[in-house]
């Protein structure tokens, strides 16, 4: 099997084959010129999403977390961010220039609106204040533009990742 993964922001090609129970695998970092070593791994899923991995005798306890704030692989004390590869020319590039979505980073209650639909805002200007767990957080405009599609009002409870408005 072959697969591209983005690990801690670095694209990697992973190739592995089953070899009588254990896996032979190679990981090539994008842009790296040196040939990566062929390694032998024994990967056991001991619980759903939890793996015991032996690589050349070294033992790693690996735990995959899929959460609303992203996908992570915890390898012992190391926390590694995992992403699927972004298609070239896809939304990542568009996001920098197109309308910016303002998403809630956490579940919370909207305790104060600082702008109204159609307001012009500068980058970094406060849009609204969310409160969760006795802490208030001001969400700011990711770019200059006009507030559109304002989806919340004071007192609303929003989920993590909820769209609050766009700045166009």
């Amino acid at each position, binding site marked *: 099997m072959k697969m591209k993964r983005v690990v801690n922001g670095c694209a990697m090609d992973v190739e*592995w084959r089953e070899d009588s129970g254990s896996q032979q695998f190679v990981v090539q970092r994008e842009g790296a010129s040196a040939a*990566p070593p*062929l390694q032998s791994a024994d990967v056991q899923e001991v619980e759903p999403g939890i793996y015991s991995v032996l690589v050349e005798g070294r033992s790693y306890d690996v735990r995959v977390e899929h959460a609303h704030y992203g*996908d992570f692989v915890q390898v012992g004390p190391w926390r590694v961010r995992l992403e699927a590869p972004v298609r070239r020319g896809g939304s990542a590039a568009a996001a920098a220039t197109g309308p910016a979505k303002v998403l809630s980073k956490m579940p919370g209650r909207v305790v104060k609106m600082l702008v109204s639909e159609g307001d012009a805002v500068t980058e970094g200007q406060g849009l609204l204040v969310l409160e969760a767990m006795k802490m208030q957080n001001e969400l700011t405009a990711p770019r200059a533009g006009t507030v559109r599609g304002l989806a919340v009002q004071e007192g609303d409870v929003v989920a993590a990742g909820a769209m609050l408005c766009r700045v166009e």
Partner: protein
Amino acid sequence: MFTKVLVANRGEIAVRVMRALKEFGIASVAVYSDVDRGALHVRMADEAVAIGPADSRESYLNIPRVVDAALRTGAQAVHPGYGFLSENAAFAQACVDAGLVFIGPSPDSIRSMGSKTAARAIARDAGVPTVPGAAGAVTSLEEALAVAAAVGYPVLLKAAAGGGGKGMRLVESPAEMEAALRDAAGEAERAFHDGRVYIEKAVLRPRHIEIQVLGDQYGNLIHLGERECSLQRRHQKVIEECPSPLMREYPELRQQMGEAALRAARAAGYYNAGTVEFLVDEQRNFYFLEMNTRLQVEHPVTEWVTGLDLVHEQLRIASGERLTLRQEDVRWHGASLECRIYAEDPENHFFPSPGRITRLERPAGPGVRVDSGVYLGWTIPMEYDPLIAKLSVHAATRELAIARMRSALEEYSVDGVKTTIGFFHHILQDEEFVAGRLHTGFLADYFARRELPPTPREIEDVAALVGAMEASRGGPASGASAPTQVRSLWKERGRLRSFR
């Protein structure tokens, strides 16, 4: 001893108190708000009473409802935990008036120590050093400027009624005073319904060291030594320890500060468990800061090193027993640390991260203690404090305690919410921390200076392999690119091997 006690709290402290009640054969009554119906403290209690909606002003802070719940269930006493109504003199008084024992000090002690200005006056009169500053709350900008000029900048503005960093502002020059005064008073008003603010000289790079005291209702008072709580963010403690690294170098300080704490507590007619907080400057001068008239979050580190159970002691004292322990019986063994595991994102200004716990593994083994208020599958509500659990350890030396804590943090995993577990793991490897050079600005410095070690290549390789294998099976993190897009690494390496 009591036969039934209501615990006027939630989360880990309610669970911790209920464990002690069960050990004493006392039935426990939980109170809960609408979002806490399935909370661990409700599940652990013998009885449970609904007291209102999620908003704590309508439930956990609602004195008549809590008192009513105690009376209706036939509880003889109320344990307030920490936070919520624990330092509310009106609540303690309401309990007493309703014929309930308040497991804590007298309403009068709470009242006198609850006002920071009154507490400072009590301490000063008892011969306990306090930070130079105004005798009472300032009433005008002019007065504030005059006091600041007299004690010298920088100065701190503090809420007279509160704690936890709310209403606190550092003022470095006269020009900053007006705005700071307005902000501090506003925040204090919102947090404590009391906008009064007082001024103190700012102690630079101070340690925050507190003394645990314990007293019975017959005037016997002892201290159980110190806890160093200098590691704070937004004036909230995150790591506490005993002994303080300072006491290792200057052991006489424990006795000096202990005696000062006892003078302050005695002046307030204090009984039950309480904590006297001090600032300690770089010349090891210590200044009375405030008294917390309740059990502290970080009491486990004192329990580890003294071998005492503070909630057991609270129950004995509240039921009218005399202290059997004398000051000379108190001994300190080894070293203990506590990390507060919060549902917060330490990489993003400790942003709260409420949500559902989708996986939970807790550390165990020798010298490891977890005080938790959550369980697998529980949705941490957004309405309350983000404390998930307190992880505390004990070992022969501070070095071993740090090593034990690091191992325990590695064993700890909470999925579904962001936590401070990884943050603590980094902190405990910090040279300054390991050297014990602590002060309340430590974390700000740390974030500015820290360089996280790069993830080793072998770790990334393992992560990439597992991530890819999971994605290839259509796991949640798939979005796999088509196999043809990836070049054969075997071919490139010219290592075409035959695989069985």
